[in-house]
């Protein structure tokens, strides 16, 4: 079969079972867009390439499949950059196809030329430029393989226009040949046995679970592991949904805005067993005082995560899919009742709480109201800021992929396009988005996409009329000097939603909130609810930056 490069790209996408792509066309992308026309793959036209990248990311996080986005050269490609970096740091499998100026125009500052492989090298898992149409199928298989195996991540494929239009015989290679890339799967079983023995000696063990549990679909096994051993669990934001928060041993999130019980448990434990988590500084607090008395065990797929931040005593280097079932089989119930009693007392005496002591709606109350109404299999997407932390604290997650949030990069503007991606991948399930009046503005143009695709996303803006998280830091650490963090001119978000053709609601009172939640739940199309909330509320508890986790302020 002789195909043009553009047709070959489409064939490759079909071979990889891609049903939906997110993109934005332009000059050199036109051959590819022509091949996409009526090809059977659903193309969702976003209103900004950043939206396309985050949507592909939301699609991937919600479904576990590779998300695909497409852009033209130059500005189209550079607009993807934030989305690529966001996906990279949270290990999200993505293939980003950027079209490029023709090969003979490369390197000459041609119209709409940008060196996107150079730009994305440090913020992607890998990238390729395709130089000949003959190598295209091979590179595409490699891209999907690299994106989805090992520790997943975004891969960029840059395709010059002349490659898109040249023709060649098409054959899709079965298995990619990559000399330098051999993702780890199985590991050293004797190491697991050692860890089991270490665990037998431990009096105060804690599990710390991260995004790796969800990426390897091991949440069920973690549940079994926790039930079998009776060890308390804490999680990073990426791992938070991997164990039902209602589980009695789930202590909640660790770190800066984590729970009192989680932070004290880690500080006082004698054994920390980390499952697929990296030690972000938002999690560790002062590194030198992190779990100071603990033996550190790390289960991870990525050798470069071992010893990166916290010195590891024992590591099981393998896919959790391989190591966790073996570990779970080997362990037995731990004799740690005094420790569990202590930890559960912390949990009981220091629950997350907020006071409804003002006339204004408390932002946490909005999360709780939605939490009660949402379906168990719903997705909860967030933007970045205080509302994100309150979501992590107060929402419950019915399944491991339920929480979709830019954890590692903290990208404001992530939420709406990610919600679009999640809804596109899961048309039958509810997608709720919590955003702030700051974050929503960074990609609000994607409301048009949601309306056009009739995606019934339910958006709740926790409107504190400013950049809440920034203001919290200014309040606490900069003597209330609110520099550049107030929105002096309020935006009418209800009208904004309506301008895009979405439903808009404004909420001032608790009664209105109740009504809005019920209304949103039943709404068949995208709906934006602008909730005015108490402006001065702080996210609590908080571990002040640079201090130890047990210095937590409630």
């Amino acid at each position, binding site marked *: 079969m002789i195909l043009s490069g553009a047709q070959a790209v489409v064939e490759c996408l079909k071979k990889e079972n891609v049903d939906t792509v997110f993109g934005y066309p332009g000059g050199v992308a036109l051959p590819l867009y022509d091949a996409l026309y009526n090809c059977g793959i659903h193309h969702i036209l976003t209103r900004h390439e950043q939206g396309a990248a985050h949507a592909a990311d939301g699609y991937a996080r919600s479904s576990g499949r590779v998300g695909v986005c497409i852009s033209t050269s130059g500005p189209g490609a550079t607009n993807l950059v934030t989305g690529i970096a966001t996906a990279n740091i949270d290990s999200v499998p993505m293939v980003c196809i950027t079209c490029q100026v023709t090969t003979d125009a490369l390197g000459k500052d041609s119209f709409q030329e940008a060196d996107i492989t150079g730009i994305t090298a440090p913020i992607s*898992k890998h990238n390729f430029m395709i130089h000949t149409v003959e190598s295209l199928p091979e590179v595409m298989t490699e891209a999907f393989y*690299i994106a989805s195996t090992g520790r997943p991540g975004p891969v960029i494929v840059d395709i010059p226009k002349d490659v898109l239009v040249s023709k060649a015989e098409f054959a899709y290679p079965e298995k990619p040949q990559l*000399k*330098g890339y051999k993702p780890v799967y199985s590991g050293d079983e004797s190491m697991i046995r050692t860890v089991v023995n270490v665990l037998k000696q431990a009096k105060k063990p804690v599990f710390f679970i991260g995004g790796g549990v969800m990426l390897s679909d091991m949440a069920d096994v973690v549940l079994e592991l926790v039930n079998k051993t009776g060890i308390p669990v804490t999680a990073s934001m990426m791992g938070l949904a991997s164990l039902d928060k209602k589980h009695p041993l789930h202590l909640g999130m660790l770190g800066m805005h984590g729970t009192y019980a989680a932070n004290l448990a880690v500080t006082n434990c004698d054994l920390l067993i980390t499952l697929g988590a990296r030690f972000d500084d938002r999690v560790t607090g002062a590194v030198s005082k992190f779990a100071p008395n603990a033996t550190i065990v790390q289960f991870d797929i990525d050798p470069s995560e071992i010893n990166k931040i916290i010195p590891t005593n024992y590591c099981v280097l393998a896919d959790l899919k391989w190591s966790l079932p073996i570990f779970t089989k080997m362990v037995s119930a731990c004799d740690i009742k005094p420790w569990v009693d202590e930890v559960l007392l912390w949990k009981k005496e220091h629950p997350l709480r907020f006071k409804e002591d003002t006339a204004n709606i408390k932002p946490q109350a909005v999360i709780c109201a939605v939490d009660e109404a949402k379906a168990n299999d719903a997705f909860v997407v967030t933007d970045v800021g205080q509302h994100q932390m309150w979501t992590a604290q107060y929402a419950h997650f019915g399944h491991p992929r339920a929480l979709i949030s830019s954890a590692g990069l903290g990208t404001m503007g992530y939420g709406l396009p990610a919600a679009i991606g999640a809804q596109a991948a899961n048309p039958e399930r509810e997608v709720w988005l919590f955003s702030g009046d700051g974050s929503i503005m960074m990609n609000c143009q994607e409301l048009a996409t949601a309306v056009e695709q009739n995606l019934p996303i339910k958006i709740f803006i926790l409107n504190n009329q400013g950049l809440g998280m920034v203001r919290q830091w200014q309040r606490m650490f900069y003597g209330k000097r609110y520099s550049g963090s107030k929105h002096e001119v309020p935006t009418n978000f209800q009208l904004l939603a309506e301008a895009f053709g979405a439903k808009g609601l404004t909420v001032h009172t608790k009664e209105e909130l109740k009504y809005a939640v019920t209304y949103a739940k039943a709404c068949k199309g995208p709906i934006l609810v602008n909730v005015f909330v108490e402006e001065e509320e702080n996210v609590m508890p908080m571990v002040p930056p640079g201090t130890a986790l047990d210095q937590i302020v409630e």
Partner: protein
Amino acid sequence: MKQQHILSVLVENSPGVLTHISSLLSRRGINISSIAASSTEEPDITRISLVVEVSDYEAWAEILNQLENLIQVTKVIEMTNESPIARELSLIKVKASPDQRAEITNVTDIFRARIVDVHPESMVIELTGESQKVDAFCDLMQRFGIIEIIRTGSVFMSRAPEAAAE
């Protein structure tokens, strides 16, 4: 205190591989003091010999892991502690008036370097050896007047009977 580390990095011979390596090293604040790349006994594999300056030794093992993680990198071999055979090729163009030639030739012989080109006013000398030897030779040539120096960067081979990659 900065420490020197010698690395032999085997990579797939494909575009962008140096970008990935140098961008990783620069992000971790590591300075590359010498680099040499060339083909190997395997057709698609290139060897990049690197001498780098590392100030945070704690991070070093971690950086090696990150290098290994790069898709196009097939193997990273640290050679620092095995005192490998080290060689660097240099071409040195010095001012050489007729009355200085004899002396220059003399020094060249002592260093077992070779004169590869002679011009009425200058000479080009080729010298192979460890970096320190090249440094010493250049110092001696200074007083005749160095016009230009080109050095390849060091390459390294282990003294063990098997290939370093094994």
